[in-house]
């Protein structure tokens, strides 16, 4: 498909009738539309979508030029129209869409839009309107599902390669949908034929038929469930890989986080220990402090006592009161009777004089004994204090080191991923994956046994069927249909895998030429584009580059899709698609713009770019030789030279 010309009438800011002829030159296949912001670049792209698919993505749904609408009289009508002239498979078509707006006084109301297609007769003069359904014909020329790959805006570029519905679109583009439609049609035919067999009167056949129906139903259920479970398996497989990659990338962080947890414990223990050290120091300081500090005093006290010593021999622990008691009872503890004035009494009175208060000898002796005891108890007072003090100091120093270490880790872990969370996610994915894989195995076993049952019942039915002439004919038809189905299925399968591997090759080739980093991409079975090395961060710019690689690979492949296999008759001609892009380079840096500019015109049959001047500059260095047509989109200026937002001209 080639886009030859676009004519717009009163479409949004394109007032009056305005026309763009696009370059259809095979060599100079680029048309550039350069315009400032809000001049109407996006509107142009959307005009294509409106004409082809009646798609209206504007916030303000009114398509009629505002200045025209404002000038309408009551009852007056104005048309918004778009003519798109394209060439498809050698035939020129004119696609026209028109919407009539009527002024009702306070409002301007649109009618339902009308669209039709003319084609140019081989004489090159006569245009004939195609009578059949408009949408069906458009689907044939450019399927709507694929349109987003060929008409796209900068903000949508990045999303293309990760879209979920991409599979159906790619299959459509590569002609695979034709085969897959054929397969599902044949399946219906086979089922219908089988159902039309008449087994009335044959009880055994009826029983087999019932069992077959049951087994078929069960098979269908299992297959449906298998699809769900496979989706889950795939999802958790990806989750597992993603978190494994994240964990690998965060191994150092994990070690650091582990060390930090250890340090938290160490610090807590040290803090407790320091509190204990303080307690012990206080305790050591308190006990025996009096003995330690009293040493100098004690020296002078003992000297004094020594000088004044009237140290006399005395019975230890004897007191004056004890002797008085013995004197009063007139009998000694040895049994001797003590009479007044006796020698024994005299001895006792002498002994009493040695006791306090008359004599302080024994008191002083006791005092000295006490002093001796306290000195020895305070002997190691200083050593203990010093020991407790240095233990405390060491623990404090150690705490300081550990706190510093933890602060350094805190600093280095700022903004780091929570590895424990990643680990949990990984474990969860792994557990779920195992569960679903187990489910899948069970389902596959059930499916296998269903299929075996079905084959058995079918065989039985076949043998019953042969007994009846009509049934025998149906059985033959079923066999034909089945053979056709197998043939298509085989073609589909080989085509499908070849399409994917060729697409992957193309996309990778383009990607490696566009992207100045070092990455490889893969296309999965759902035609989503992925990096082989799992990564976590992807800039918008990289996403855009990836999508450009994908789209250019896609159009590239479509061109040669079914012409390369020379051994077979081509069942689909080469498909040529234009790329129509709005502000495609907005997220992409200049190096990438240059790389992309190299590839797009070479891949696509026709490239139409609406772009801002600044983004065009790096691209034009590369594309200039292949630019066939170039336009400026300019806003109308008012009498003060200010730009009018609602009127633009293409020049």
């Amino acid at each position, binding site marked *: 498909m080639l886009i030859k010309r676009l004519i717009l009438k009163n479409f949004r800011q394109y007032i009056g009738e305005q026309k763009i002829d696009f370059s259809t030159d095979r060599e100079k296949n680029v048309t550039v539309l350069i315009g400032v912001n809000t001049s109407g670049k996006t509107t142009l792209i959307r005009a294509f979508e409106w004409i082809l698919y009646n798609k209206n993505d504007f916030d303000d749904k009114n398509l009629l030029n505002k200045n025209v609408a404002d000038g309408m009289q009551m009852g007056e009508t104005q048309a918004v129209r778009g003519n798109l002239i394209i060439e498809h498979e050698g035939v020129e078509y004119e696609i026209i869409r028109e919407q009539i707006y009527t002024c009702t006084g306070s409002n301007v109301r649109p009618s339902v839009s009308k669209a039709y297609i003319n084609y140019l007769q081989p004489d090159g003069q006569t245009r004939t309107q195609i009578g059949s359904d408009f949408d069906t014909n458009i689907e044939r020329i450019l399927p709507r599902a694929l349109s987003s790959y060929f008409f796209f805006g900068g903000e949508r570029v990045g999303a293309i390669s990760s879209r979920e519905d991409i599979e159906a679109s790619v299959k459509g583009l590569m002609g695979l949908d034709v085969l897959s439609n054929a397969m599902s049609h044949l399946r219906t035919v086979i089922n219908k034929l089988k159902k039309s067999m008449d087994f009335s009167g044959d009880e055994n056949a009826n029983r087999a038929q019932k069992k077959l129906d049951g087994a078929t139903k069960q098979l269908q259920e299992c297959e449906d469930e298998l699809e769900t479970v496979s989706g889950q398996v795939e999802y958790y497989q990806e989750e597992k890989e993603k978190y494994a990659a994240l964990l690998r990338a965060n191994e150092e962080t994990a070690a650091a986080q582990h060390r930090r947890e250890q340090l938290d414990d160490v610090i807590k223990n040290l803090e407790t220990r320091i509190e204990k050290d*303080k307690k012990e*120091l*206080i*305790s050591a*300081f*308190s*006990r025996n*402090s*009096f003995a*330690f*500090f*009293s*040493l*100098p*005093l*004690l*020296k*002078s*006290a*003992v*000297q*004094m*006592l*020594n*000088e*004044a010593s009237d140290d006399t021999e005395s019975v230890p622990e004897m007191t004056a009161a004890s002797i008085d008691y013995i004197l009063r009872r007139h009998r000694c503890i040895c049994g001797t009777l003590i009479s007044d004035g006796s020698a024994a009494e005299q001895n006792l009175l002498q002994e009493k004089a040695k006791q*306090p*208060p008359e004599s*302080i000898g024994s*008191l*002083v002796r006791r*005092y*000295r004994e*006490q*002093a*001796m005891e*306290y*000195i020895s108890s305070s*002997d190691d*007072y*200083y050593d203990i*204090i*010093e020991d407790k*003090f240095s233990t*405390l100091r060491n623990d*404090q120093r150690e705490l300081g080191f550990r706190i510093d270490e933890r602060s350094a880790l805190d600093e280095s872990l700022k903004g780091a991923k929570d590895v424990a969370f990643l680990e949990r996610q990984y474990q969860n994915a792994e557990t779920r994956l195992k569960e679903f894989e187990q489910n899948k195995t069970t389902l596959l076993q059930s499916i296998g046994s269903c299929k075996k049952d079905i084959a058995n019942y079918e065989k039985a039915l076949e043998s019953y069927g042969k007994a009846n002439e009509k049934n025998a004919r149906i059985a033959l038809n079923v066999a034909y249909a089945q053979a056709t189905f197998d043939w298509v299925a085989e073609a589909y399968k080989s085509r499908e895998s070849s399409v994917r591997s060729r697409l992957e090759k193309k996309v990778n080739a383009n990607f490696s030429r566009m992207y100045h980093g070092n990455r490889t991409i893969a296309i999965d079975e759902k035609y989503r584009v992925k990096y082989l090395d799992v990564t976590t961060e992807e800039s918008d710019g990289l996403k855009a580059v990836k999508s450009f690689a994908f789209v250019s690979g896609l159009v590239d492949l479509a061109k040669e899709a079914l012409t390369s296999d020379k051994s077979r008759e081509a069942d689909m001609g080469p498909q040529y698609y234009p790329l129509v892009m709005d502000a495609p380079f907005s997220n992409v840096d200049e190096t990438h713009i240059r790389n992309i500019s190299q590839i797009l015109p070479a891949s696509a049959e026709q490239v139409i770019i609406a772009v801002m001047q600044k983004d065009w500059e790096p691209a034009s260095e590369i594309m200039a030789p292949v630019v066939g047509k170039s336009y400026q989109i300019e806003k109308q200026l008012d009498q003060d030279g200010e730009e009018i937002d609602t009127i633009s001209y293409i020049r």
Partner: protein
Amino acid sequence: MFDKDMQIRGKYATYWKALTQLPGNANDTSSNTFKVFENYIYVYMVAPIIGLLHGKRAQYDPADDSKDTAGMLAEIQIKNAAKLKYIYRLIILTDDSQGLTNEEKINWAFREDDNEDSVKRGMELYTSYFFGGLEILYNEFVNECITDDDYVRKMYEIVSEFKDEQNIDDLTVDVEALLRS
């Protein structure tokens, strides 16, 4: 002596609290949190010695309008009576503030335990040095230390400076020799 409940009041009560770890339910009127002694009794035993070493006696200050009080039960003193009496005698023997001869000091320390008046005077002397010691310890610790670390360092300093100044190792040997003679 040392066999009745005792209580002191005013700023000395606050000083005593500031130097002592108090039981959880006690009303701590001091502003510091780090306490260098485990119990009141340890302060009561060492403070008079510190006071005496510095020749520092103190009395209640009539201008002190603090209503703070602190005290000890009789049983604590009875339990520590031997040590307290030992310190009491040591103070009487080594105090020079009363202008007494050695003989008079020895008599007061050892002969007059039953003399109420002597004991009263002895306890007054003890208490005055206790207050003096409280003031010194309070100044050294609470007035000079802010952080726990300050307190800890001060504790060690006081002990090790005293050891060096007094040449404690030799002094111990000397005193032991004197005691044995």
